[in-house]
């Protein structure tokens, strides 16, 4: 069975933030919430590298482990989703996640948080496929349409790959072989086994 994964090739990522906006526009994410971010190290110096980060949909996801209400669950294809009807916004997942992925929209009273929002791998959520509710709460369900997540599809330099783990690993390995450098895909040893 296919196992969905993200892979960001840091030799290719140019910090254009196309993935960030693709995600936001496509899924109607409110301002202030970043399902995907681009992080740069050594800015302005030799060795400057950028990486695009979203939920990695870990094999053995710590967020699922800590969720006190079982709002977070993993599909058989490895996509980790949150049920916003059940989530209580406690923030445990944020504390457990190695990538700082879970996001909480600011509520109106005393900095009260709303329920957790994160990358859905463009797979919508537990609401019925393509329903208005799904679109409003989770965004598009491109996986059900047989399409690649927006961020990876719109990546300007094809640095960000998404899809079946074996396949994208092979694409990446081919690139690495061509480049002749043995750079590892960041995050993979943490997120996947």
């Amino acid at each position: 069975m296919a196992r969905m994964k993200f892979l960001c090739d840091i030799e290719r990522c140019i910090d254009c933030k196309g993935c960030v906006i693709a995600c936001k526009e496509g899924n109607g994410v409110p301002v202030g919430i970043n399902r995907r971010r681009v992080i740069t190290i050594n800015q302005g110096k030799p060795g400057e590298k950028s990486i695009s980060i979203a939920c990695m949909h870990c094999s053995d996801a710590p967020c699922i482990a800590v969720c006190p209400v079982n709002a977070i669950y993993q599909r058989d294809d490895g996509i980790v989703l949150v049920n916003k009807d059940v989530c209580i916004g406690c923030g445990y997942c944020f504390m457990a996640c190695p990538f700082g992925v879970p996001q909480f929209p600011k509520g109106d009273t005393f900095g009260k948080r709303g329920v957790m929002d994160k990358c859905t791998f463009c797979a919508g959520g537990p609401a019925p496929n393509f329903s208005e509710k799904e679109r409003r709460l989770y965004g598009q369900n491109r996986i059900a349409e047989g399409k690649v997540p927006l961020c990876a599809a719109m990546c300007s330099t094809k640095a960000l790959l998404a899809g079946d783990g074996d396949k994208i690993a092979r694409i990446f390995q081919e690139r690495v072989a061509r480049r002749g450098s043995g750079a590892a895909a960041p995050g993979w040893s943490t997120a996947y086994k």
Partner: protein
Amino acid sequence: MASRKIFKTSGHSQTDRPSSTKFTLNPKLARRSFMKIAAATAALAGMSVGPKVVRNLRAEERKEAYPGSKIVRTVCTHCAVGCGVKAEVQNGVWVRQEVASDHPISRGGHCCKGAGAIDMVTSEKRLTSPMKRVNGKWQKISWQQALDEVCSKLMEIRDKDGPDAVHWNGSAKVSNEMAYLQRKLAAFWGTNNIDHQARI
């Protein structure tokens, strides 16, 4: 690798929390979507390394997100690379931006500006009607009034000070046809005082 052991407990607890109760998709249905994504991944692979792998999807398999929508091919309006944009339009409304992964130049790629192309139409900051400034305040006017006033004032200046008293700043953001009309307009107006962003 030792890191495999990180979440032994959580792994255990995961089986405690059956993902198969109320949230898991119908496994059958879910499996079908994997097959689609697997094919889609192959398409992605194709566009990044080798010849394109065409994704075959049986028509009856597709359940549409926006029923009855159609795809309009167009071109991004930001830089001169000329990335393709596929706009999904339903009932005359641009509902979402699709990925032009078969475009020969961009292969579906977009920078942040292009990825937000839809915002050009949906932005809340768009001007909603012609306006003129009266006593320092903006006032909404009709197109009829706006064009009448602008054109009569321009003609007045042309008659009084000559055609070269008007300077036209055209645009590198309009179509070839419009750019051509802009240059033609200046010629018919009777001046060479026309220019645009590309002064080189």
